[in-house]
């Protein structure tokens, strides 16, 4: 329920101003923390395993892509052309 008496309204304004001032003061000293790579190179061994690359055999992937592309109306973004992975 909103304050009704003049004293209560003044107190509410003061509290709001104090809150805004403290937030602004906090912003002044706030700096975005740089985001560091959170998976270190030595933690990527699992990602380099062949089970993580189902299209690892190029000729095989190319034939399957060809089977789809000559029978389906859509094309592109299959990743067969590449895509890459920074996990080596």
């Amino acid at each position, binding site marked *: 329920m909103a304050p009704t008496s003049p004293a209560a309204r003044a107190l509410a304004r003061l509290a709001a101003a104090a809150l805004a001032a403290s937030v602004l003061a906090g912003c002044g000293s706030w700096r975005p923390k740089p985001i560091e790579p959170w998976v270190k190179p030595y933690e990527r061994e699992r990602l380099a*395993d062949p089970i993580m690359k189902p299209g690892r055999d*190029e*000729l*095989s992937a190319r034939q*399957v892509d*060809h089977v789809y592309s000559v029978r389906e109306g859509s094309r592109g973004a299959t990743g067969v052309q590449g895509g*890459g*992975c920074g996990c080596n």
Partner: protein
Amino acid sequence: MAATRRSGSAAVVAGVTLAAGAAHAVDLPEDRAELMYHLYDGGGTRASGPAVLVRKSMLDRVSVSGSYYVDAVSNASIDVVTTASPYKETRNEFDLGADYVVRDTLIHVSGSRSKEPDYVADTASVDLTQDVFGGMTTVAIGFTKGNDKVGQKGTPGWIDTAHHWQYRLGLTQILTPRWLATANLEAVSDDGYLGSPYRVARVFGATVPERDPRTRESKALKLGFVGDITPEGGERRSSVRAEYRYFWDTWNIKASTLELGYSRYLAPGWLADGFVRYYKQTHALFYSDDAQAETLYVTRNKQLSSFHDISVGGKVTYTLKSVPGKYDVHLTGAYQLLSFHYKDYTDIRTGSPYSFNAHVLQGYVSATF
């Protein structure tokens, strides 16, 4: 003209620094050789042949690759048997490429030629790739230009041409030590003869040569996740993956593809992969099973109709020989069953919506060295 359109088989790559952080040195693709026999059999069409690929690095900065792919096609598909005579022809495809490291960027250039008696498709591609953000993010951009010559049996020379522009962007993000996310976006523009001189449409029950627009633009976006789900301390590693692709174009085709996969080591030296795939599309604006009005464009190409297909497949790879740090030789057998179900393409022999099953077989030896 068994296979006309072909995405540039080029590999990868690109140097864009979208993310902050130090760039990570890229690696050349590993030296590799593949020898494969492949077979597609379904819907009256049989395509088979050998394929070979060799990739070798030189001077630690350049890797060159070459491939040769043969499709010996015997075609008695429903389009052919209901409007023409079955035929046989061979498609040969050559591909040459080179990868080169410049500072922290891998540059890939390649060229290919796919040749049939009545169709020649040439492509030239360039791709750039770079690892950024401490190697956690890989960004790839690529471009392929394709030029086709279209012929028709019985007509000397070429009857028309087609040109294709493909622009692609790929992003791979390491999420955790076990999970990767990928995103691929590709836009393709076509200009020229985009139909088949042999295919006919039906208008008021009568057959007429199909008439396709001479331009088309499409976009496709694919999102995927792959993760290692091996229990802690588990002896045999396993992974799951999920991919979804949405496609739309100026011919009003909209398509969705969903694919789920599972991979697992069965025993030392034995690796198995399995997947299911579901695909669904709406028909092109000018597609008609039997048009009841005269229009500028009309086709009865079932590739542009409303249909869905379901695939189930698997492959098993056995390591024949492995000398760590020197070379590995693998033997792989793969099988896939596809089931196509058309919604508005009638089998005029039976009067029912057309459907068919197809089988894909692959057997290959691959070696890394």
